[in-house]
């Protein structure tokens, strides 16, 4: 009896030692030792070298409560901020162009993806089951810029702006909701960047939806590779990041391009001129950054009355970085910019033209083109509906009066079914009366009517 007990105790002890041994040799310790060895080579004397080699090994962590993340990537990726490691092998390689996104304030995973909590390679790179944010491939990393920088442009990442433009003009909202506006036929895309961070899937999806999503009623928009890429970038940026105050305060990029966008949005040319081109009500702005400090200009944008009491310049409620952007634009704005801004402004429209133009904008913005086509040609397959596809709107006036069309837009319409025994057609006309005002719907009808093909005279 005691022999058996003793033998079993030895086995238990052996198992305990096995557990302890297993726990004391994680891979990251090997990487850290190797890195210290590499670093010690660059040290000037034996004492410093020894100090480097005997640096204690521990898990390194960047706590980011403002981004609700914890990143432990630097446990292995020790050389990201060390320029002498430019040619070192991974995981020690130096990360160029980090500023202003220093690891201490931003970590790594918010741009690169991956599982920041992990300390092993596979787990940390996120390519494991049950982790929804794997490491992004190199060519898609810049899509992450759009996770925080949602307004304006991001210098160096034109794909984001292009993706957003395509989304708004190709009619995606007809079937997909984004931030509460859009149709319910396809999935809501407001958090698409959070739930589906698989760029290869997204790109293939845009090139041919049915190849990746078998029974999807989404039509093939025949996007080019570049367009699919831009849309993929845009999708990846659709996350709702919880950002602490520091991050929300620096979110807007004060670039000249954004400044120009704001200049146009706020219609500054209505009162100001640049190099003589523009309106004469307010002062000319050419070279204004040489005459006044940026602090003075900033104050002017915040509180125009302070500097010029009685000024008719309105108070714009602009964030710090938005004001910075405008000032940045002012530093390079020329008369040429003013001319180009003026020429883009629409010439005054008649009331009729304005209504049709507004209707056209609505038609694109709310996604009607997604099913009915940019030229109203229809043709999107709708299995088991009579006719088998979404109808063209070019002959709507043959079958309906304008009032009937307005009613259909307001209340929606299920397509007539071809074969009652087969499944109901997946695409239908949704009801828009809760989304669009009566005026907006009337304008859409005006736009449609302006495009009706005249019936051939018999």
């Amino acid at each position, binding site marked *: *009896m*005691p022999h*058996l*007990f003793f033998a*079993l*105790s030895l*086995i*238990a002890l052996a*198992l*305990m030692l*096995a*557990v*302890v041994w*297993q*726990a004391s040799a994680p891979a990251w310790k090997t990487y850290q030792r190797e890195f210290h060895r590499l670093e010690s080579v660059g040290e000037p004397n034996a004492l410093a070298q020894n100090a480097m080699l005997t640096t204690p090994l521990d*898990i390194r962590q960047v706590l980011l409560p403002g981004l*609700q993340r*914890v990143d*432990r990537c630097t446990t292995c990726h020790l050389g990201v901020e060390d320029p002498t490691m430019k040619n070192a092998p991974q995981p020690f390689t130096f990360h160029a162009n980090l500023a202003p996104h220093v690891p201490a304030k931003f970590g790594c995973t918010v741009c690169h993806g991956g*599982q920041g*909590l*992990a*300390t*092993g390679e596979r*787990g940390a790179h996120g390519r494991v*089951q*049950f*982790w*929804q944010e794997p490491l992004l491939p190199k060519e898609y990393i810049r899509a992450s810029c759009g996770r925080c920088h949602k307004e304006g442009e991001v210098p160096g990442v034109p794909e984001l702006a292009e993706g957003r433009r395509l989304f708004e003009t190709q009619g995606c909202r007809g079937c997909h909701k984004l931030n509460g506006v859009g149709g319910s036929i396809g999935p809501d895309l407001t958090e698409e960047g959070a739930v589906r961070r698989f760029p290869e899937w997204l790109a293939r999806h845009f090139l041919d939806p049915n190849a990746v999503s078998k029974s999807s009623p989404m039509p093939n928009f025949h996007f080019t590779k570049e367009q699919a890429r831009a849309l993929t970038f845009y999708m990846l940026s659709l996350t709702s990041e919880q950002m602490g105050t520091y991050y929300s305060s620096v979110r807007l990029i004060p670039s000249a391009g954004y400044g120009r966008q704001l200049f146009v949005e706020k219609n500054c040319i209505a009162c100001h001129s640049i190099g003589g081109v523009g309106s004469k009500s307010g002062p000319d702005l050419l070279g204004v950054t040489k005459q006044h400090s940026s602090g003075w200009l900033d104050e002017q944008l915040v509180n125009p009355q302070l500097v010029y009491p009685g000024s008719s310049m309105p108070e714009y409620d602009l964030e710090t970085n938005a004001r910075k952007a405008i000032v940045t634009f002012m530093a390079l704005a020329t008369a040429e910019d003013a001319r180009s801004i003026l020429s883009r402004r629409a010439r005054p429209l008649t009331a009729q033209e304005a209504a049709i133009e507004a209707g056209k904008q609505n038609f694109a913005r709310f996604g009607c083109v997604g099913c009915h086509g940019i030229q109203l040609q229809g043709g999107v397959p709708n299995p088991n509906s009579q006719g088998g596809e979404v109808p063209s709107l070019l002959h709507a006036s043959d079958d309906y009066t304008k009032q009937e069309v307005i009613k259909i837009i307001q209340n929606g319409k299920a397509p007539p079914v071809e074969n009652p025994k087969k499944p109901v057609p997946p695409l239908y006309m949704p009801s828009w009366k809760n989304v669009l005002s009566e005026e907006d719907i009337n304008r859409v009808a005006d736009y449609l009517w302006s495009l009706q093909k005249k019936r051939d005279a018999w």
Partner: protein
Amino acid sequence: MNPIRDAWQSIFRRDPLSTDKGKSELVFLNVWLHIHPAKVKKENLKVKHTFYLGFITFYLFLILVTTGVALMFYYRPYPPQAYQDMKDLEYVVYLGTFLRNMHRWAAHGMVICVFLHMCRVFYTGSYKRPRQFNWVIGVVLFLLTLGLSFTGYLLPWDQLAFWAITVGTNIGSYAPLVGGRIRELLLGGHSVGQSALLRFYVLHVALLPSAMILLIMVHFWRVRKDGGLSRPVWKLKAESSAKLVSIGAPAEPAFRVVPASQDKTYGLMEVVTGKPTFETVTAEEEEDTVFSYPYAFFREAIALVATVISVMAVSLFWNAPLEEMANPAKTPNPAKAPWYFLGLQELVSHSALVGGVVVPALAVLALVAIPYLDPNPSRRPADRKWAIRAFAVFALVNVVLIVIGTLFRGPGWALVPPWVHIAGAE
């Protein structure tokens, strides 16, 4: 006067273990060990009779308490942090993965062993008088084990946990009249959320373990007072076996007085003295007894070390699962309860009220009633064929239902062969 010897003897007051007196005193002068008798009958030690399942279940419970307390140092029972702490245990805490594995596999082991222990007690007829109420306490301990396992299942706050508990609490809500209220009390709300996590945590680390420990104490005490561990009395010599096998037979008075041996009297705190009313050790059986130390203790110690080794070995090689973080908006298909409730879920899929409430309630009531309804005074298996067959069927039905629920049910709870999909939530 040797001061060192004095100091030693002030702590360890017994005689040396080489003496009989010392062996006895080790048991009855020691607060931790005196649940044992100083001497046990040899048949009490038979492995093939009890398989030491009761001990193993208890040891698994001890492993669970130890590893559980260790894990408590690194776990916060609030929804987003709970999942992060599970990841921290996996990646950052020294021995975190190992301890979590120990805890999970010991938990599964305990549910299995407590069930097997119940089967064994039935098979050896050890629930018969005077041990009926101890069987009832055992059933309550079984239910507490399931409750502890269920409350602990939610704590990782991953998809597996969240939906298993959603399904489990919904099954419970089918109970008539009180079902909805019980579910509301458990969840602290209408659905599984941060209140549910906190309540389940309190139940899991404080309330249920306290109840468990108290009832275990009663359970062990009763075993001792009822004459010690179960032994195959039908295998003893004919006359004594005849006497012992038919304890409390209906034709005889409720308490059968056994003639006391001449050398033994029993005193109870010098207030009551008297003769024994249940079993006593007769002169013949005296030869069949051995000292608890070392015979019983070494066997129990071996069972303990063997249990620990098994759990450690499994924990070294198999990791407890952790799926993605709980997402109320995304239901896995199929959503399955923890495995020990899958039999229940299978029944519920056929009928919510009958399957989910009536049948399980009747099953528990029937279990509790077994010792009181059993008319057969004999413990010999040969005399109880039909009882044993009936219980075997009951056990088998449970196992089969769980197997069906685990391996044969796929998306939409449709029947699919086990090789088509992976068991459990996707």
